[in-house]
């Protein structure tokens, strides 16, 4: 999933079942911040890019408030794993596993994502 940050013209793609669904240009993702995208079934995904260029995708819905806002949270690294903190009540979610770091019983869906 890592790629050279300079590469242009790359598209961000998300795996839905067996197909890759194209979302946007890679340049639309600023390192350290997220964006939200709409999926064909009406659900929403939050996409992030870290400073090394790695991409992550999780469900955009914050399970604690119900609002579709995870893409607007602050990201960071905790014990070498990337996370996003919900902008509403600040619970953190692991971007790889979707697990909530502040409440073991909660988890959000994750997606496979690539740039090409």
């Amino acid at each position, binding site marked *: 999933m890592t790629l050279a940050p300079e590469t242009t013209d790359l598209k961000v793609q998300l795996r839905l079942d067996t197909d890759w669904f194209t979302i946007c240009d890679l340049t639309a993702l*600023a390192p350290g911040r997220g964006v939200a995208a709409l999926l064909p079934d009406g659900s929403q995904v939050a996409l992030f890019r870290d400073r090394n260029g790695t991409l992550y995708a999780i469900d955009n819905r914050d399970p604690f408030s119900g609002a579709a806002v995870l893409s607007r949270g602050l990201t960071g690294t905790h014990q070498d794993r990337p996370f996003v903190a919900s*902008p509403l009540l600040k619970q953190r979610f692991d971007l790889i596993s979707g697990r909530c770091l502040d409440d073991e019983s909660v988890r959000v869906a994750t997606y496979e994502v690539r740039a090409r």
Partner: protein
Amino acid sequence: MTSNPRVVPTIVLVGHGMVGQRFLEALAERGLTATHRVVVLCEEPRPAYDRVQLTSYFSGRTPEELSLTDAAFITDHGIELYVGDPAETIDRATKTVTARSGLTVEYDTLVLATGSYPFVPPVPGKDSDGCFVYRTIEDLLAIEAYAGSRATTGAVVGGGLLGLEAAGALKGLGLATHIVEFAPRLMPVQVDEGGGAALLRTIEDMGLTVHTGTGTQEILAGADGAVTGMKLSDGSELATDIVVFSAGVRPRDQLARDCGLTVGERGGITVDDRCRTVADPHVFAIGECALASDGRVYGLVAPGYEQAETAAAAIAADESDQPTFTGADLSTKLKLLGVDVASFGDAHGTAEDCLDVVYSDARAGLYKKLVIARDGTLLGGILIGDADAYGTLRAFTGSVPPVAPESLVLPAGAGESVQLGPSALPDEAIVCSCHNVSKGTIRGAVTDHSCATVPEVKKCTKAGTGCGSCVKVLGQLVTAELEASGVEVDKGLCGCFTQTREELYEIVLALRINSYQDLLDRYGREGARGGDGCEVCKPTVASVIASLAPTIGASGYVLDGEQASLQDSNDHFLANLQKNGSYSVVPRIPGGEITPEKLIVIGEVARDFGLYTKITGGQRIDLFGARVEQLPLIWARLVDAGFESGHAYGKALRTVKSCVGQTWCRYGVQDSVRMAIDLELRYRGLRSPHKLKSAVSGCARECAEAQSKDFGVIATASGWNLYVGGNGGATPRHADLLAQDLSDAELVRLIDRFLMFYIRTADRLERTSVWLERLPGGLDHVRDVVVEDSLGICEELESLMAAHVANYADEWATTINDPEKLGRFVSFVNAPDTPDPVVGFVPERDQIKPDLPLLTIGHRPLEGSAQR
């Protein structure tokens, strides 16, 4: 219906209140949940919750947050919990309990933890609509619902501990509140006459009306059956819409009476010192329903917890560990209506020959009394208004403290006062009386179990997890122990930096570092370098960079380059995120002054975009319900009409409120509006460790409430007085007078220095009030630095502020003129024209409010979190 045949011995618990839950935890700790079937009958519609903290509902705690039971605990231990299904009969011959639903369970051991019920005196009219008791979450919700529809005034019958709690609830609902107490003082059980007087004064100062030495004779109701008032024993009538009875509690022992268990003359199920009922060795009673072997019923949670432990140990029949319950200490520390009240040990001085040491300052609402034996042994005491010393004093009770007792009750700064740290306590001293944890055990948690933080020690020892009154002492002990064992206490900002915010500020300023990544990679902790930082240090460094921008060569625009990725979510969208994902918009209205034309523009914008409109507490107007893609369109209109960002989203200057002042007001002595506008325009956009608020009043009547602000200005005949460190909010603080009779120029210069000194030295999210109290030397030190220039830094502080003022630009105007930045204001990167479908609104009072049911769309039950 009889539930599953028994294969293992069964324990049935009746009542899932605070003590019942503690009992279940004690069973689990002793492994009894693995060897027994455990069945719980819970009458209330929800599992155990923190009754002690009931009133915190009015400061924003939800019923869910009050819960004491997590679903995993119940499932992991295989406990069968029947919520909303009370026990109705007990048959001791067949050893069965039958619940309301018809469920019948056979028990080997039965534990009654049914608590108590509020006593309602038999006064005429007590059943009218609008009469309540206050014990459960359901009571609280019912009072709230009733008050919301019709009430402006409420009265509490009873001025004891629970009466004051109930009064706090009525006050929390915004009602004019009365307390009617039969005894000649408030809290007659816990405090003496002097304490009662201090309490009375403080409570009256809060705007509550107290009637002591007065009985309630009748509740008066209107034709519709709803309360209209009450008749008092002095012949007067009190008009009120709500009456809450809080005249004591009675043990809930009916179930026990019905099945022939022995109960005391004045109620309570009679038990022995193992909490076993005297009538039946298979039945136990614990908590407020039990009459202990010392002949008392305990109405506090700590003794109940001790009984829960005792009963669990007796059931485990663990010979090596057989605690008994033969009575308990009635020490309590409470925050009632925001006033600290504590009593411990022999508070009323009943021991023979004992002496009192009293410090009292009625003006400050302080009353402190220690009861001392002839030989100097501390026997007990009462603390009203300031109970900081409670944790230490309670632990010293029964021994001779190492310093003179009077020095323990004098207020800080009164010469002789001594802060007796917990290091002076002996190892056997009980620090946490809820869970009976000694100082030695806490030290052991740090040294032998390598707990390095208060949460770890809490988990390890349970100390601090009851009423919470010992947590302060706990924190001091943990730090002292860590320092003693040579561990360096980590004062770092977060997991990424070992430095404090103040140290990072100095690094950024001295080395002119204007990139977060640069700072992290050079000065971050070993493992954090090269990483992505975290949600704590990113906005903190963003704020430091923003407040120093012109000086360190960074862009003054917070959405420029790397800075955009560091900002808190609200700053990133230059608006305030609301619960459903929409935003609110607050244009700046300097000093609260606005022309009719501008008011009309705000009205038109709100109307055209369908926004909910409200006047804020900061003398300006908030427009709610904007979708993210509407923000630039709204701001294009506002900027066009001459508005700027109000920074309601930023840790930055918010508002400078004003009163109308000399121009119109007959009392005004200076032009407070002009000064407020000047100050607001000077400091707008200034990023700081926390938000900054200010106000200017035109005379000493103080209509602008300047003394509750971070910096407040009050006009005098010859100039301005400057106050600093004030705060509203959860922990209000009156501002301190920094300097008097200043000219306009002197005032501005001092504020420049004060603000820049604060920005330089405060911790993240530390308001000026907290900062001022934390700084060694406090106000005097700040005065030395900013008035006397004792550190020789004033010139630098002033030039930093001058650079900020010269470089200010409105960030919304910059944003709407930058097409690249505007691209960010969409709900979906791949469907810029589609709005977020879960942001919706429904009508209320001719405006809109968030459509919350929409937020449940896409909700999936999560594994492991199901509640039975």
